[in-house]
């Protein structure tokens, strides 16, 4: 309906292979970015930033990571939480060892450490498939979780056993630590997410993305076409864990501002992110965002939404209800659209493009 594709023809392959070949889509993206980068920081309330946007962005990053592994390469992982943890601790160690280096650098760098760990635990993926693999990744989850608590070196032997986020600045502005403003943290996070999303989508649109999907869709054929399964799967683990790691670091340093690892990076976190990917849509970048938005905002919405609707709730009850609703909604969505919100979006978009025709 808003699409006017007539006359949008491509005279070279670069344009034809662009991620957003349609003008209207490019405009849409530009609009979204403008809102995210300008409107929200200027007008957004603290609540919006702290309880909606920042969590949403962190989870989006994590979902993209898991989506690359599960959605694009077809390898189920239940260890995302732990890989996030690795990122967080790596970042913690790095910034305490080299405080002079900018924190943002370390947040990104920490991704590489979880990549390494990811590859390590990805090794079995060559021989193990499906749920067996899922369980294998649980090993990573619990082992790493154990490390987080049992290896004091990781948390610098401090008594609380928690990560302590220090004061760090970027261009002279506090971006981490108690004095850092929400806006500053938000902007850093947003920039990270934007750039990394762009990178991820680039990867998925190229040779690497294709070999991932090849392995997912028909691993035998892929192998007979010269795609080295092990290499590809490990690469998937590496990239995926990288995103998880950065997400973890960002979570600790830009959102929580420090805290107990076992709360933040436990098995439930892993499941939560798996939900996001599934509800959002396997094998879809935008799906990762939808899923993250849905799952991360749902509790908040319920907690603040229901009272607003005049349904008074004791804190505990609210929590229980949230559980029930989340559970119910997950099932509901799986039934309505097993391919996730992304598919719904896709269908909607197609309808708009063909408007007024139904197909």
């Amino acid at each position: 309906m808003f699409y006017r594709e007539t006359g949008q023809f491509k005279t070279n392959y670069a344009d034809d292979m662009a991620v957003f070949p349609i003008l209207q889509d490019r405009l849409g993206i530009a609009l979204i970015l403008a809102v995210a980068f300008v409107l929200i920081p200027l007008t957004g309330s603290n609540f919006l930033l702290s309880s909606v946007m920042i969590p949403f962005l962190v989870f989006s990053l994590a979902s993209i990571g898991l989506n690359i592994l599960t959605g694009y390469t077809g390898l189920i992982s239940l260890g995302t939480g732990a890989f996030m943890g690795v990122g967080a601790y790596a970042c913690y160690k790095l910034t305490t060892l080299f405080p002079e280096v900018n924190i943002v650098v370390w947040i990104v760098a920490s991704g590489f450490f979880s990549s390494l760990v990811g590859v390590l635990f990805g090794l079995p993926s060559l021989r193990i498939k499906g749920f067996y693999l899922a369980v294998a990744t649980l090993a990573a989850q619990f082992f790493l979780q154990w490390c987080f608590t049992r290896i004091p070196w990781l948390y610098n032997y401090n008594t609380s056993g928690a990560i302590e986020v220090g004061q760090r600045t970027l261009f002279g502005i506090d971006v981490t630590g108690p004095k850092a403003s929400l806006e500053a943290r938000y902007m850093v996070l947003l920039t990270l997410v934007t750039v990394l999303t762009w990178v991820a989508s680039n990867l998925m649109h190229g040779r690497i993305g294709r070999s991932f999907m090849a392995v997912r869709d028909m691993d035998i054929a892929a192998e007979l076409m010269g795609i080295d399964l092990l290499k590809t799967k490990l690469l998937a683990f590496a990239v995926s864990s990288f995103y998880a790691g950065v997400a973890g670091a960002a979570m600790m340093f830009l959102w929580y501002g420090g805290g107990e690892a076992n709360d933040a990076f436990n098995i439930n976190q892993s499941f939560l992110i798996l939900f996001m990917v599934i509800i959002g849509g396997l094998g879809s970048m935008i799906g990762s965002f939808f899923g993250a938005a849905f799952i991360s905002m749902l509790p908040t919405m319920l907690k603040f939404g229901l009272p607003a609707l005049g349904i008074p709730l004791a804190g505990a009850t609210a929590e229980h209800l949230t559980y029930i609703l989340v559970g119910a909604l997950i099932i509901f969505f799986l039934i309505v659209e097993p391919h996730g919100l992304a598919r719904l979006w896709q269908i909607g978009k197609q309808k708009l493009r063909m408007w007024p025709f139904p197909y």
Partner: protein
Amino acid sequence: MSATDHSIRKGEVLLAVDQVSLSFGGVKAITDVSFDIRKGEIRAIIGPNGAGKTSMLNVINGFYHPQQGRITFKGQTRSKMRPSVAASQGIARTFQNVALFKGMSTLDNIMSGRTLKMNSNFFWQCLRHGPAMAEEIRHREFVEDIIDFLEIQAIRKVPVGKLPYGLQKRVELGRALAMEPDLLLLDEPMAGMNLEEKEDMSRFIIDVNTQYGTTIALIEHDMGVVMDLSDRVVVLEYGRKLADGTPDEVKADQNVIDAYLGVAH
């Protein structure tokens, strides 16, 4: 590609299967079969169901590892190799029941056939610029030639899952061609096609053979097609070689007539 493949000229032996035997937990699939495929020819492998035709292909491109026997490809002899190695050596194939990447478009499926030939590094892949994009475009051009060749322009961007069977087979052929193979293995390329589709497919196979000079080994049930297409035919039955020669020789062979043609449809 390795230098060896140029050393082999048309008509010379490209691949030799030497007394290969294969069995699954006691069940014999192939028993001591030998034959060769010459550069530039269209070679047919025929036989009743369960004759071990597909197993033979699987052995040739390294998916199954024979218990006995050797395979010589482009002068290198080995008893077994990994499929990915076989692919990099220049062996491509299509499958009996189409094995496309359902989630991807026709274009991406064929593009994935170029994976081996692409090598821009991870960094550039991340940016999807510079060398990575240049490479992407280069191979897109190559793939577009194949699309043009197979006359599937109209379905370029359609997810293969949505395509009718006949077209899927064509796309799969395209994906194999994208690998620029020295040896192309076709596993029942015309299974489940109607007459018209069969004619098209045969035309494509012949054109591939003449245009790109690709050596082709194909399994096919439709005798008529086989006899028209192929330069030489090897007949298998119960995992053993029954006959080997030109279509006419094979047609004349008494064993073959008893075993196969007699009961052919």
